[in-house]
Each structure stands twice: as C-alpha cells, then as structure tokens.
C-alpha cells in the first residue's frame, strides 16, 4: 500500500516507523527540525517538508495514487481538511483521522472520514470499564451507519432485574443481541430473564444510546 501521513509528531513518526517495512510511506510535516529528525531516523524518502493541506504539496506527494491517507496532527481542523481534500480531490479510497477534541468524533464520521481514533475516548472507555458502577460502554462503531455495538452491565438495583426481555421497554433503533449471564452467552428470546450483573450487548443508533442506558440500568422510579 502507499500510505500518506499528515504530521510527523509523536503519533505520525511512530506510525511511519511501524509501517515503513511493509508499505510505501510518506509523511508530510511543516516543521523543518522534525523533518530532519525523521529523515535521519527513517530515511529521506519517507519524509517531505510542507503543509499537508496545501494542494501543491499534496500533488508533489503523489496524493492521487495514495491508497490511504492518515491525519495525525494535534489540530482537528487540519486533520479534517487533509482527509476531506484527500477524498474529494484525489479520490483516496480510505482516510483515517486522529481526533483531539473527543466531541468531534461523531461529526468526522458523519462527514465521511472512514476511521477515527480518539485517544481521550479510548482512555475514557478503559476507565469506565474499571469503575464499579458501569454505564454503557461503546465497544465498536459500525462504519457509515451511525450505530454502535455497546455493552451494558445490569446493576443490582436496576428496574430490569427479574424481568423478561419481552417486558423491557427499549428505545427504537436499539436491538438487544446477546445476554451474558454468569459467564454464559445466550441469544435473547422474548422469555429470557434479566439478572443483576448480566452483561448485555446491543446494537444501537448513537441517538438512542442514552435512552437504552437508562432503560436498562436505572432503578425503579
């Protein structure tokens, strides 16, 4: 694959270093000192000085034959523009963007960025898994559908405890897919009973997640 990376900061540099053995990689970086560093470490053909969002630079980089464009800078606006121009002007088949402000993740997906990576959201996900009270944990985003596979642990005091699946009032756009009771996964039927500490996996639209979380975890009102 031919991979063009915007930004030779820590993320861009280590990414290029990991990819360069198996792929053709070119990193575009504005800071001449950073360019010298990467050239010394990985070779002069891996790095290019320039503004990755500038058309002249993109042309020189060979954007039109790139298989993948990866934006790794610390500025979301630059990452978004690099990916959008790659796609719209150079028909790059796949774009990946680093997200710095976690609030931008949904928007970037909506705007057609194929993959997004948010360190903040990843760390938050891990922290949430460690907390004694678990809310809803997004496990995976279904590309292009605005839907996620989510995990919910049923708390002891939840209104759902002791109810059957057919009695649950789930929001539209959410589907319960798997019930894991005492370590045994089962496909839910209308008669499946929900117990405290069960782990539920559901597919849900992003808008319905909050309603799903409250339906499954909140205590009786």
């Amino acid at each position: 694959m031919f991979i063009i990376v915007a930004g030779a900061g820590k993320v861009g540099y280590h990414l290029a270093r990991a990819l360069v053995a198996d792929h053709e990689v070119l990193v575009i970086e504005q800071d001449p000192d950073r360019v010298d560093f990467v050239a010394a470490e990985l070779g002069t053909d891996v790095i290019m000085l320039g503004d990755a969002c500038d058309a002249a630079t993109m042309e020189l980089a060979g954007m039109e034959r790139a298989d993948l464009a990866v934006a790794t800078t610390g500025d979301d606006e630059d990452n978004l523009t690099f990916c959008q121009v790659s796609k719209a002007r150079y028909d790059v088949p796949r774009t990946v963007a680093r997200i710095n402000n976690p609030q931008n993740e949904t928007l970037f997906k909506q705007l057609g960025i194929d993959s997004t990576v948010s360190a903040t959201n990843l760390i938050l996900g891990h922290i949430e898994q460690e907390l004694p009270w678990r809310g809803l944990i997004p496990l995976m985003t279904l590309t292009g559908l605005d839907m996620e596979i989510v995990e919910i642990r049923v708390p002891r005091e939840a209104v759902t405890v002791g109810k059957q699946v057919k009695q649950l009032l789930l929001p539209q756009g959410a589907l319960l897919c798997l019930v894991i009771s005492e370590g045994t996964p089962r496909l839910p039927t209308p008669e499946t009973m929900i117990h405290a500490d069960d782990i539920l996996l559901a597919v849900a639209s992003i808008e319905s997640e909050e309603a799903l979380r409250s339906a499954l975890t909140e205590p009786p009102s």
Partner: protein
Amino acid sequence: MGCGRLGAELAVMLEADGHEIAILDVDKYAFGHLPPEFKGQKVLGDGTDQDTLRRAGAERADAFVAATRGDNRNALAAQVAKHVFQIKRVGSVIFDPIREEVYRGLGMRTINPTKLEAGLLRESIEREDE
C-alpha cells in the same frame, strides 16, 4: 467566528441591519476591532469547539459565518455549525482557492477573498491603464 477586521466589519453591518449578533474570538484583544457602540455578545473561546458555540447561542442561531484567517478552522467550525447545530445558513471564508473549490463541491457556502481581491485589483489596474 473571528473578530478580526473582516469579522468585526461584518458584525457591525449585520447589527445595523437589525440582527442579534454574537461574535467569537480566541484572542480577547481582537474585540478591539469592534466600535464601542457594538451591542452584540462577545464570546471569548474557540469557535470550532461545540461547547463554546453552544455558549454563544448556536442552538438558536439562524446563521453562522466562519471568518478567521485559518481556512481549516473555518471549514471545521462551519461544518460543526451545519451538522451538529443544524444552522440553516452557514458561510465560510476560505482563502486557498483549491480548498475553497473542494468545500464548495461538498455543498458549503464559501467565499474566496483571494480570487475576489485579485479580480478587483485586476479591474482597478486595467481601468487605470485605459
């Protein structure tokens, strides 16, 4: 968004037309471009950030204009305004003609000052030659 000379000038014009204005900038000294009689809300903060836009009243805004010096910032803020806050009229200044073309192709309302100014300059030069 953006209280430079361009943003401030536009805000004053729109206020004179009777509109309610909120103007954002990351630099508090930028508000110095506004005349003392400006009545609109001055919001200190990053206009690409959703919470900042909400603070400026984006949820009830009828129009949004991104007019900073940074093309990429303008493009991001305009897309947040359009897609997150569903603001109907969203305009954006994009200085790079090629980026402007890309964003116009993606359905954004863009203004390219570079092309406009070059055209105006050409006009004035050619006129003087006659």
